[in-house]
């Protein structure tokens, strides 16, 4: 009988110890009254809107005549191999994969492209310089914080939605600067 009692006490101690070890510290997991189904917060994409095209104003100089200008009929030849990429900016709350899936393209993809354009010199002594820039499709993605309570997600009202912008590379545009050459 004493042995049986000792065994029961031992099992009770082991069970209690295991229970304490398996419990999560309150600091890591917010306990809510409705917590029977679990509680957590998660950022989700709420909406995606196409904002149209974005002509990136930053330009790269590609080719030019000599400062004193060129000869009428000559061509200034621009050829420049560059790495172009899709990209995003703003505060990203969801994962990059989620953002990519929501806009339908890989927001981090980059690839090599060669910008090429020729511009004619219109008169003797005209200075001509060709620049290239990038054209993107621009998307606005609204991210919203949700609370998961008892198996359902609810948008929270105490945190504002956060926008992030995704850009998909489309093409080059070419900019030409013409003036009288330096004499």
């Amino acid at each position, binding site marked *: 009988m004493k042995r049986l009692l000792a065994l029961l006490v031992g099992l009770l101690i082991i069970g209690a110890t295991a229970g304490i070890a398996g419990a999560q510290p309150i600091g890591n997991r917010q306990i809510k009254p409705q917590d029977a189904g679990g509680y957590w917060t998660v950022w989700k994409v709420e909406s995606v809107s196409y904002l149209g095209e974005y002509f990136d104003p930053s330009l790269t100089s590609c080719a030019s005549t000599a400062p004193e200008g060129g000869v009428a009929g000559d061509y200034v030849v621009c050829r420049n191999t560059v790495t172009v990429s899709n990209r995003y900016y703003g505060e990203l709350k969801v994962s990059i994969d989620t953002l990519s899936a929501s806009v339908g393209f890989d927001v981090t993809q980059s690839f090599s492209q060669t910008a090429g354009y020729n*511009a004619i010199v219109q008169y003797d002594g005209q200075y001509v310089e060709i620049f290239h820039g990038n054209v993107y499709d621009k998307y606005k993605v609204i991210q919203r914080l949700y609370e998961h309570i008892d198996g359902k997600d609810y948008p929270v009202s105490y945190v504002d939605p956060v926008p992030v912008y995704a850009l998909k590379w489309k093409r080059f545009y070419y900019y*030409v600067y*013409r003036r009288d050459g330096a004499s």
Partner: protein
Amino acid sequence: MTHAKSIVPVFLTLLLIFALFAYFERGRSTVVSRELFISQYRGYVAGYVNDTVRLDIYWIKTGNNNFSGVFGIRNLPSCLSVDGITLMETVYFENPNINERTISVRLKLKTPGRCIMDDTYLIFQREGIIKRVPLRSITFEIYRKPDYPSLKISKYIIGSIGPEPSPPMLQYTLYNPFNDSVKILDVVFEVPGLKVLKLQAPVIPPQGEANLTIITENTTKMGEMYIIRPLIVYEVGNQKYFMPAEAFYYATIPSENELLSIFSEGEH
């Protein structure tokens, strides 16, 4: 005899390997020379008599790099004449098997008035084969050069080229040489399927510069090529003037993968 028997499977295996190698090598080397012309313009050109306008035709090939031939322009309306044709490289591909040359046709504006180029084609002859490459449709508005001074265009977007269609945006930096402010009244061009979505036309101070921006949108499916040389209508004091802007060129050139897909069609 035993020795001969053991040679037979080895021989057959070698024969099979050789046959497979020859088959795949054959498949790999069937780089049939194929070509594509991107030439179908839609456009509007305002200009003065004796101005020249360039039309670029993109000639893309795979399989060989021979771009020799004799070129000519046919069915040009009488308001225009050919001022020269040159061949140069302007589009570059990562795949060394895809090559491009740009056939650059310079057209001179001859007679004042409105004329439409809609049945003109590039004729190209090589090794007894003649090809006709249509240039589709461009409206020309040709004016005699007036004797009043005009605004100067110092910077502008000359072109937009890439694999995906995109409604054009035109931008001109205009210098006002007058002693009065200049007000831009209108920017005129008529291109089927394109319309002005937004016109940003600030007042240009005397001896100052400002950017004129024209954002367009497409009302139908985008074409592969556009040329737009709009007419800028402006006001100095109470006097109204106009001037042709610089030409803007637009082309959608398929990506390498799309080109390889186009070229491979009909091979099998």
